[in-house]
């Protein structure tokens, strides 16, 4: 079992794949970390020595924002826009697409599941 950057416990997989289970680390950063700490990406996480795991952990702590910190950073950025009262902030407040997409149709990712007539009171007998 390997605990890297808090709660993530990926095992059995290749190092470069397993690292991607951490929020904020994708294909590119995973590869980067592997080369930085000199571990072949083909190695499985279970075959890493404790020292190597420690090395990875230190590399991530040093050079990358991940997990909680990253989430907080993005949340702060969005909050800044909302407090500013600018157009992008208003769109965030209304939960509508921010970057000028159409909203007549689609935009379901932001709007959530379609509701027949929003806000209509259900008829109860």
């Amino acid at each position, binding site marked *: 079992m390997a605990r890297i950057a808090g709660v993530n416990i990926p095992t059995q997989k290749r190092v470069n794949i397993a690292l991607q289970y951490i929020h904020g680390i994708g294909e590119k950063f995973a590869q980067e970390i592997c080369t930085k700490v000199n571990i072949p990406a083909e190695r499985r996480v279970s075959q890493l020595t404790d020292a190597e795991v420690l090395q990875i952990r230190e590399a991530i702590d040093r050079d990358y924002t991940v997990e909680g910190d990253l989430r907080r950073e993005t949340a702060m950025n969005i909050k800044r826009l909302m407090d*500013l*009262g600018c157009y992008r902030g208003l769109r965030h407040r209304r939960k509508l697409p921010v970057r000028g997409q159409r909203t007549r149709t689609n935009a379901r990712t932001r709007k959530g599941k379609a509701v027949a007539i929003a*806000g209509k*009171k259900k008829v109860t007998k």
Partner: protein
Amino acid sequence: MPRSVWKGPFVDGFMLKKAEKTRASGRINEVIKIWSRRSTVLPQFVGLTFGVYNGKKHVPVSITEDMIGHKFGEFAPTRSFSSHGGDKKAVKAKG
């Protein structure tokens, strides 16, 4: 794609003059009416109040430090939002 750095921020020239004039006159709280929504908010505008035209009227916007780098138009929405009526409780919850 962002604007090239070597060009510097875009501002209509008269904006600078207007800002300077109000500062010199000492009436900082006065609303400066502007139509130039396309101008960037510069550091020297901080503390002033601008009336940004939204196509109908001038929306008062007092400039803070956070607004630097945004465009004036971003702070004066041109469309008025209206939703369908219906259950008042549901509408309130949406905000």
